[in-house]
């Protein structure tokens, strides 16, 4: 595996009012890797995801995707005085870059959500088809007057194929929210894959799953990485899952990365054990 950098988070600090949720985070994800971000509740993991996907503009810092700067900000306005994080001057004077989440997705970064967010009134198939909308070349007139027949057919064909690959054919026309919980998680991942991403961000994919389902998910994540040539960056609490499939792990505590390394290194890191207060027994 070549060491091609896909995601690089550089000095990212996210401060809400006086509270620092993410404190000077630096991390890198290379092509083809599965990297996990772990840490106790409230450590700022989801906030970090929201920064990378453009939901929040960071207070300070930059994010690179495949070597290109996609997000950058520095303390401005009220934050100038309030800012308590590190490196306050590094990015000052440069342009703030704050794309909306849809732009990030179109760059090739897809995500799932901690609390499943499917399109409630739509069927499984439609949920996936919607994700194909961003890959359109038609405009509103050609789409309304059905001059985009080929493209529409391609969207539908690709969605069907994806459904098949994800083993969701049998529930194709069910309402998305009528699926069992585990399947909803699968569908959410399938929907993210429909945007043809290179980097997939999974926010607690195994939340609420029993050991059997978690095991299946572990295999599933490994499989999609290989089949779709993905790079995966995920937040997870289930230690068996994390230890099983991660190439590398970052540990976050109080918004600060406290450790980084292979599962083996993390397992034996005293600071991690301390942060988790016996959380290492989980495995």
């Amino acid at each position, binding site marked *: 595996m070549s060491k091609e950098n896909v995601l690089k988070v550089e000095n990212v600090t996210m401060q809400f009012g006086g509270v620092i949720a993410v404190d000077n985070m630096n991390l890198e994800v290379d092509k083809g890797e599965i990297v996990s971000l772990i840490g106790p509740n409230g450590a700022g993991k989801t906030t970090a995801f929201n920064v990378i*996907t453009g*939901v929040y503009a960071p207070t300070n810092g930059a994010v690179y995707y495949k070597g290109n700067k996609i997000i950058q900000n520095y303390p401005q306005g009220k934050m100038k005085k309030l800012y308590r994080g590190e490196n306050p001057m590094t990015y000052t004077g440069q342009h703030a870059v704050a794309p*909306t*989440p*849809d*732009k990030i*997705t*179109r760059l090739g970064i*897809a*995500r799932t*959500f901690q609390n499943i*967010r*499917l*399109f*409630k*009134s*739509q*069927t499984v198939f*439609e949920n996936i*088809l*919607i*994700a*194909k*909308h*961003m*890959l*359109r070349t*038609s405009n*509103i007139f050609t*789409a*309304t*007057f*059905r001059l*985009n027949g080929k493209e*529409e057919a391609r*969207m539908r064909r690709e969605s069907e194929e994806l459904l098949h690959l994800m083993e969701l054919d049998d529930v194709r*026309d069910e309402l998305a929210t009528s699926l069992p919980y585990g399947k909803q998680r699968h569908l959410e991942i399938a*929907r*993210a894959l429909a*945007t043809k991403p290179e980097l997939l961000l999974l926010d607690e994919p195994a939340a609420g799953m029993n050991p059997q389902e978690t095991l299946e998910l572990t295999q599933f994540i490994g499989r999609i990485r290989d089949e779709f040539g993905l790079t995966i960056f995920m937040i997870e609490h289930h230690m068996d899952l994390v230890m099983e499939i991660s190439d590398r792990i970052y540990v976050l505590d109080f918004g600060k990365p406290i450790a980084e390394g292979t599962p083996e290194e993390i397992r034996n890191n005293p600071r991690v054990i301390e942060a988790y207060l016996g959380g290492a027994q989980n495995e």
Partner: protein
Amino acid sequence: MSTKKKNAWNVGLIAALLILLFLLEQTLPSSSMLFTVLKKGAIYALVAVSMNLLNGFTGLFSLGQAGFMLLGAYTYAILTIPMESRNSVYQYFDGGIIQFTLPIPVALIAGGIAAAVFAYLIGLPVLRLKSDYLAIATLGFAEIIRAVFQWDKLGPVTNGSNLLRNFPSFRSVVFPFVVAGICIALIVMLINSTYGRAFKAIRDDEIAAEAMGINLAHHKRLAFVISSFFAGISGGLLAMYQTTIQASMFKSAMTYEILLIVVIGGIGSVTGSCISSFLFIACSEWWLRFLDNENLYIGGFHVPFLRPGFRKVVFAVVIMAVVLFYRQGIMGTKEFSVEGIADFFKRKFSGKKEKKGGVSHE
């Protein structure tokens, strides 16, 4: 059922409907209440569907419909008043400053465009607002438009707060049906396209839609502008139907009525909006008329409470009952279609347990 067969059925049904309308007009006296209901119903169906596109399909709670109808109605009227009538219509403003007339279809479309352009302009700031704030801001814009059109200084164009009249209107009920029908068909085609799917995604979950690469600002603005375009056209039709217009007609009460039509029909159902607008107009203009009759006797019994205005009270109570107890409305989010009916009967006759009528979202 194949798409071709379905289309053939639909075309056949529409043709049959138009022929039926034509025959009705030849046979019934033109003063029949039925024609009032059909004409006004068709116009309200269009504006209700356009509102549904926003409120039902995109999840944007906008209450600016009356304002956009006003823009459409005024644009149509101003552009079509014949030259020879301008002096009498604009008697306080020396015949006005617009000294040309356009053909009816062009003026109707111009009305739509005027509403759409305005929607584009106000959409930039307003569409960033969430649910009820958006509602109140659009309601406010409609009020501002109304005030501006009544302004004396704009009299040479808008005739101030005076009536606009003498513009061409329609006689036959077929005309509003054809125009509204074409417009509704366009909206349905849009809803079934990939853009329609994106709108529904935004309605279901904005954050997830954005994570699927859908540009929220762009798509919301599209829905808003398109909805306003058709509201503008329906405003033009309403002007034709009324034969005279005045800015004070287009109050927020009008928007409320349209909203209630959408709710009764089912938020998110095009056919529901159409059915309910005819029902709404029929009830308010025709079927409940007897309630306004003070001297109604049933077998010698003088029915109490009846006098002008009672009809509207009963009507409002019925609407409240729908809002409270039949929140799904007539159709829910389902659509009425040939296929749905065919399926319904198939299930009925094959003895299987039937699901409630209607057909998929496609």
